[in-house]
């Protein structure tokens, strides 16, 4: 059993290196932001360990600092993390027959972990469940380590952090660019941007997310109906 784990570790570790660099960097930015807003190491550690959702944690700094209604925080969490629903749906097949670590693997399915495991074709000689575990666990460790480091260093060396939270925007722009390159049909991506911009102009910055999600769902559903009709027609011929 130990040998299985060690073999899987040697296979999994190199795949996590890009995430390591990214998570330590973004984690540090998060730790510093927490520190700037008056939240120390216990808060930072708890959030990174138990919430473990990068974008939501960034938004969470504002929610914590403002002391918003927890119900508001909960709804915000559902909205921002709604995309995880679709990562889960994409992994239904791959995670289907896992046993020992399944619950943890689902808990730790962040954007970056998803991007590593979803394309993973583990060789037969290596235990895939262990590989998934190492990828997920290592990434989790990088994130926790980065945020704690940023939180501690942020209170030692002080520098002008104005604009540091742009790292989050940068991350999404990078994912957006990757997705754009990987796909010929840009309808869904354009729907997301256009629907959000229109709702932002109509409803304002504080309340546009829910209308935007509804608009996006309606447009995508129309696309689904169009495709379904086309299939029926083709089947009928």
């Amino acid at each position, binding site marked *: 059993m130990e040998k299985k784990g060690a073999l899987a570790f040697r296979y999994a570790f190199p795949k996590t290196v*890009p995430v390591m660099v*990214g998570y330590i*960097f*973004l984690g540090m930015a998060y730790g510093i932001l927490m520190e700037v807003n008056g939240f120390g190491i216990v*808060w930072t550690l*708890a*959030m990174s360990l*138990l*919430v473990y*959702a990068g974008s939501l944690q960034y938004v*969470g700094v504002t*929610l*914590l600092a403002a*002391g918003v209604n*927890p119900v508001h*925080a*909960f709804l915000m*969490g*559902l909205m*921002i*993390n*709604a*995309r995880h*629903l*679709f*990562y*889960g*749906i*994409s992994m*239904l097949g791959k995670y289907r027959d896992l046993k020992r670590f399944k619950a943890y693997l*689902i*808990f730790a399915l962040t954007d970056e972990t998803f991007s590593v495991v979803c394309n993973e074709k583990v060789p037969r000689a290596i235990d895939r469940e262990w590989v998934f575990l190492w990828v997920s666990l290592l990434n989790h460790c990088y994130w926790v380590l980065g945020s704690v480091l940023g939180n501690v260093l942020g209170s030692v060396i002080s520098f002008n952090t*104005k*604009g*540091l939270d*742009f*790292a989050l*925007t*940068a991350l*999404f*722009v*990078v994912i*957006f*660019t*990757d*997705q754009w*390159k990987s*796909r010929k049909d840009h309808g*869904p*991506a354009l*729907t*997301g941007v256009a629907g*959000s911009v229109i709702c*932002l102009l109509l409803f304002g*910055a504080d309340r546009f997310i829910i209308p*935007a999600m509804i608009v*996006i*769902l309606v447009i995508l*559903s129309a696309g*689904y109906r169009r495709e379904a009709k086309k299939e029926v027609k083709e089947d009928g011929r």
Partner: protein
Amino acid sequence: MDGEMVRGICIAGALAAATLITRFLPFFLFPAGKNIPKYVEYLGKTLPFATIGMLVVYCLKDVRMSAASHGLPELISIAVIVVLHWWKGNSLLSIGAGTAVYMALVQRVFA
């Protein structure tokens, strides 16, 4: 424990619960051996693209075109990220450089 701390713990708990729900729900709804409806499958293929687009807009929601900088720091930094990422495809480089450019712009140029 003061009220502020209790509220903070409640907020953190709410964020953790929301995250758990979004990550576990698909596996509860579609357990091993059950077929996924075609509509859900279609959404699973298209929604991630729309969602990231929405999140980019979400990050920029507080940018005011009427402000002194006219949203230029954001526009320039995003252009740098897209060009760099299209060219090199290195996520860290793109994120690091884009953030550095943005910080320099808001701290020095448009300060």
